[in-house]
């Protein structure tokens, strides 16, 4: 057994009120094993009775040095690390990373791959929102929400397994396209999901949206105004619930998002309930995009034929000398990227997921920085929980929809 260490409040002297130092208010640890912190997050709370006076988030329990590890891998191999960032949004992380690489080396992607990427990332957005809805229902003691939401999420993960062989750590998007084309069962599986899902969202809403117990817990708590949100770089549904209509899919369309007809749900209240409404409506909008994308899915290749960056198909290797050389070079050495830096961002279910990528002329990234939305969305938490009850803190925390893997990297 290691000896117990005595901890003093000295370290937090500048963050707590005077009354904490005299012992008038209580300092309480919430987490890192608390079930409602959605991962390993520790909140140091200063409490006056049951009222939160100060909240000091302590992150880093899940820090795995992903950015450092990526510097030691080639551009293709570094991609598997991105799955592990925000494990609720693996397809979206892959997309953000491959888009950054494609921008850095200037690589085109065939149309079919773009449409498939849109379908899969939108399905991932729905799956991520379902996990949020289920777990935040669970936090408010609505156990059935959790079971219903995970039932539908399972169906989406089955589609991911169908296309990539993996339910969560997909690594399905590759620089220049996709790993391989989707199997023939793909379309039917997505159509099945499209058929049942609108009714299921209605079902969730019938359980929660007008439920008086739910409204009592959600209305008017955790208010975040637009100016504070922007100053804290809060993005995604949290920003849109505070009345700022900013969605990268609309503002800076990528992957051909300009071709799809969808709305960006925005609410002005900025409270926990508004964030709930934005996410519920986003699920419906995402489904609209999936339907449109599936209807227009063109035939054709799913990988760029630029052999300097994308390995040739297996069938060519046996008959073509160049194909063999390209295959060998790409898998032993990797492809070089210019000595320059780019920043590219996508709209993840949580907000702006940006990748800062700097190359040094070699096959490995010189520096990768993942600008992860949960990091900033959590940094605003101390401001919005002040003056609320501990029970409300649970509701507010779940409404921020953080993923600790995304924060700690």
């Amino acid at each position, binding site marked *: 057994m290691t000896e117990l260490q005595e901890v003093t409040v000295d*370290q937090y002297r500048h963050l707590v009120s005077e009354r904490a130092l005299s012992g008038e208010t209580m300092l309480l640890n919430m987490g890192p094993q608390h079930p409602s912190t959605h991962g390993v997050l520790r909140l140091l709370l200063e409490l006056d009775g049951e009222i939160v006076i100060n909240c000091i988030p302590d992150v880093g329990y899940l820090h795995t040095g992903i950015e450092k590890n990526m510097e030691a891998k080639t551009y293709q191999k570094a991609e598997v690390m991105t799955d592990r960032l925000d494990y609720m949004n693996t397809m979206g992380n892959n997309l953000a990373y491959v888009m950054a690489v494609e921008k850095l080396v200037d690589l085109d992607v065939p149309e079919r791959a773009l449409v498939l990427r849109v379908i899969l990332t939108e399905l991932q957005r729905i799956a991520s929102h379902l996990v949020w809805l289920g777990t935040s229902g669970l936090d408010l003691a609505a156990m059935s929400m959790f079971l219903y939401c995970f039932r539908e999420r399972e169906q989406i993960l089955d589609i991911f397994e169908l296309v990539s062989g993996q339910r969560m750590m997909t690594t399905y998007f590759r620089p220049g396209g996709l790993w391989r084309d989707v199997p023939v069962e793909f379309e039917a599986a997505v159509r099945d999901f499209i058929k049942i899902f609108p009714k299921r969202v209605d079902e969730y809403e019938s359980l929660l949206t007008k439920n008086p117990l739910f409204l009592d817990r959600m209305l008017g708590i955790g208010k975040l105004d637009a100016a504070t949100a922007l100053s804290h770089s809060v993005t995604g549904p949290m920003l849109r619930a505070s009345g700022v209509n900013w969605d990268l899919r609309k503002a*800076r369309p990528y992957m051909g998002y300009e071709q799809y007809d969808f709305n960006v749900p925005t609410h002005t209240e900025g409270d926990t309930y508004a964030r709930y409404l934005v996410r519920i409506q986003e699920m419906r909008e995402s489904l609209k995009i999936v339907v449109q994308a599936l209807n227009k899915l063109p035939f054709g290749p799913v990988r760029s034929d630029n052999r300097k960056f994308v390995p040739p198909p297996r069938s060519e290797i046996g008959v073509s000398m160049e194909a063999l050389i390209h295959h060998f070079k790409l898998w032993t050495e990797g492809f070089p990227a210019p000595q320059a*830096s780019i920043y590219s961002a996508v709209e993840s279910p949580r907000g702006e997921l940006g990748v800062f990528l700097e190359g040094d002329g070699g096959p490995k990234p010189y520096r990768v920085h993942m*600008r992860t939305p949960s990091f900033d969305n959590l940094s605003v938490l101390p401001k919005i929980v002040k003056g609320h009850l501990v029970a409300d803190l649970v509701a507010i925390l779940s409404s921020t929809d953080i993923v600790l893997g995304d924060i700690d990297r």
Partner: protein
Amino acid sequence: MDAKLEPIVKALQAEFGGEIEEFRGEAHCFVQPEQIVAALTLLRDRHQFELLSAQTAVDYWPQMSPRFHVIYQLTSLAQNLSVQLRVPLNGDNPTVPTATGVYDSANWRERELLDMFGIQCEGHPDPRRILNPDDSEGHPLRKDYPLGYEEPQFTFNFEEIDLRKPYAKE
């Protein structure tokens, strides 16, 4: 470069000097460390760059001057523009004035800079490590910090390696 971005970058250059790099439509403006707060305030107040999208650094070790570039990625929602500021820092005592007075999100990001690169942010209200434990040594994202590995144990040398392996024993 975007036509709307060009006058902003020109104004920035007129005020603070510094060169401008352009790559794939992105503008990277170099600013001296003592002028960064003024540059951020100018961009936020006069050109509506409301969002500090990202703040990070790059280490160019063994090159010592400048060894670091601190990067500020700014986004304007109103004009739908992005601009990047780069602040070169010397290696021996990397210090940059804090941006927390301009953007609140700089608070945690500068704690990350301190933690990962050892870049001090002058005037920061809460200078603690953020991701690594308080008692950890070194700054992992510096290029002179080794990646590290674990020695693989096989049946023939399991106990020998177990003796010197640094993990918590009873």
